[in-house]
C-alpha cells in the first residue's frame, strides 16, 4: 500500500532522458529500479521514472576491475560467473544470505545502495571491497561508496548508474558473517572483512560492521591491529577484542547493546578466521 499518490508513470529510454524527467518532477519524483523500497516505504511520491528501458544492467570485467550495472537484480549478480570467481565469490556468498530468491529477483544492487538500510548485507561487503559508485547528473562522476552515504539525502536528481569493484588483489581473501534469527530475516549484526596477506603478514585490512544497528562502517582501530602484523590466530583474537571495545553498538528492537557487543567480537573473529583459512587455501 505504499503508492497512493502516483499520478505519472514514465518510461525513459536513456540516461539523459531519465535524468531530465526526474529533474522536472523534483522532490516528489522517484527513480524506479526494482521498486521494492518505493512500494514499501514511499507514499509521498507522485511521479515514477522507471529505469527498465535505460540500459543499466549487465556485469562486466576488465583490467580496471568489475562493473555491476545498478539495475542488475541481486539474482543476476549471484549467478554471475565473473563474481563467482572474484575473491572466492564473496559477493554471491553474501547474496545467498540476503532475503529470499523471490526478492532477489526484484531488488537491484543500485536500489539497495541508495536505500542504505542499516541492516544491509550488501553494503558492508561492498565497503570491505573498496567499491566505488558512479553517479549521473548530466555527467558521470565516480566516488567511493563510503562517500555516498553522508550525501545520499542530498543527491537531488543524481542517478546511481554503476558499482565498481577494483581488481581483486593477488593475495587477498574476503569473508562475511551474518547474525540473524533466520536466514530470511535481516541481520541483527553483520561483519565483512577483506584482507591482503603475503607470506603470513597482513598488508591491508578492511573490517566493516553493519546493523549496529547504525549503517555499516569500517572499524579503523581493528584494521590497525591487523596491518603489518602476522595474520595469526593471536592477531585475530586481538583484533576481535579491539572490535568489541571500539565498535559502537546500540540497542533496538532486534537486539540489546550488550548482545551486539558480544556479536561484534564473535563476528570479527569468525570473519577473520575464515579469511585466513581462505588465504591458506589459495596459497596451496
Amino acid at each position, binding site marked *: 500500500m505504499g503508492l497512493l499518490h502516483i499520478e505519472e*508513470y514514465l*518510461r525513459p529510454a536513456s540516461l539523459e532522458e531519465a535524468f531530465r524527467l526526474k529533474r522536472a518532477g523534483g522532490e516528489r519524483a522517484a527513480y*524506479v529500479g526494482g521498486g521494492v523500497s518505493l*512500494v514499501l516505504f514511499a507514499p509521498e511520491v507522485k511521479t515514477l521514472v522507471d529505469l527498465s528501458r535505460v540500459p543499466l544492467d549487465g556485469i562486466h570485467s576488465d583490467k580496471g576491475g568489475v562493473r555491476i550495472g545498478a539495475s542488475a*537484480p541481486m539474482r543476476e549478480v549471484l549467478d554471475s560467473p565473473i563474481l563467482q570467481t572474484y575473491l572466492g565469490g564473496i559477493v554471491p556468498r553474501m547474496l545467498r544470505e540476503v532475503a529470499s530468491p*523471490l526478492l532477489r*529477483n526484484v531488488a537491484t544492487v543500485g536500489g539497495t545502495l541508495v536505500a542504505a538500510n542499516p541492516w544491509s548485507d550488501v553494503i558492508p561487503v561492498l565497503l570491505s571491497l573498496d567499491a566505488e559508485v558512479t553517479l549521473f547528473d548530466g555527467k558521470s562522476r565516480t566516488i567511493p561508496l563510503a562517500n555516498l552515504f553522508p550525501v545520499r539525502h542530498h543527491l537531488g536528481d543524481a542517478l546511481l548508474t554503476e558499482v565498481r569493484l577494483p581488481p581483486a588483489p593477488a593475495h587477498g581473501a574476503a569473508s562475511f558473517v551474518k547474525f540473524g534469527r533466520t536466514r530470511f530475516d535481516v541481520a541483527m549484526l553483520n561483519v565483512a572483512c577483506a584482507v591482503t596477506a603475503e607470506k603470513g603478514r597482513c598488508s591491508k585490512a578492511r573490517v566493516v560492521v553493519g546493523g549496529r544497528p547504525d549503517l555499516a562502517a569500517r572499524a579503523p582501530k581493528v584494521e590497525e591491529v591487523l596491518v603489518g602484523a602476522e595474520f595469526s590466530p593471536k592477531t585475530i583474537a586481538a583484533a576481535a577484542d579491539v572490535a568489541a571495545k571500539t565498535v559502537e553498538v546500540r540497542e533496538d528492537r532486534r537486539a540489546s547493546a550488550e548482545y551486539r557487543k558480544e556479536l561484534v567480537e564473535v563476528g570479527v573473529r569468525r570473519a577473520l578466521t575464515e579469511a585466513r583459512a581462505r588465504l591458506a587455501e589459495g596459497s596451496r
Partner: protein
Amino acid sequence: MKIDLTLNGEKRSFEAAPGDTLLEVLRRERFVGVKKGCGEGDCGACAVLLDGHAVNSCLVLAGKADGREVVTIEGLADGERLHPIQEAFLDLGAIQCGYCTPGMVIAAADLLAHHPDPSEEEIREGISGNLCRCTGYVKQVEAVQDAARRMRRPHG
C-alpha cells in the same frame, strides 16, 4: 495507463493506475490464483514468473511488466493436464489450506527450470521466500523433489 504483456502465453493489454502493483492488476483481471498475503514481500503467496523468474508481484509495479512475459499459477497447466509440480503437490499431499500453494508452486517452477536436479538444501532455499503456516514444509520439499524426478523423465 496501458500495459501490454504476454500473460500465460497470450498477448494481453490492461488498463492500470500508475501506482498499481502487478498483483493488483492481476487480481482485478480475475487471475485470483495469485494470492495477496502480506503485501510486503515476506510471504510469497503472490509469486508469479516474470520473464521466467519468480517474483513477489506485490512489490512489482504494474508498469514494470510492460513488454514482458508473466506466468501465473493459471498458466502452468497445459490445458486439462496439470504441470508436474502441481501433480506432485497433489499426489504427495503437499497442500493443506492451499493459500501458499500457488506461490510455492511458482517458486518451485523457477527453481526447477534453472536447477533440474536440486539438493534438498537447494529446494529449501528455493522456497524460502514462501511461508506456509499449516505445515512444517516437509511435504512441499518432498513434492518438489518428486516433481524434479517427473520433469527429468517426462514420459517415465
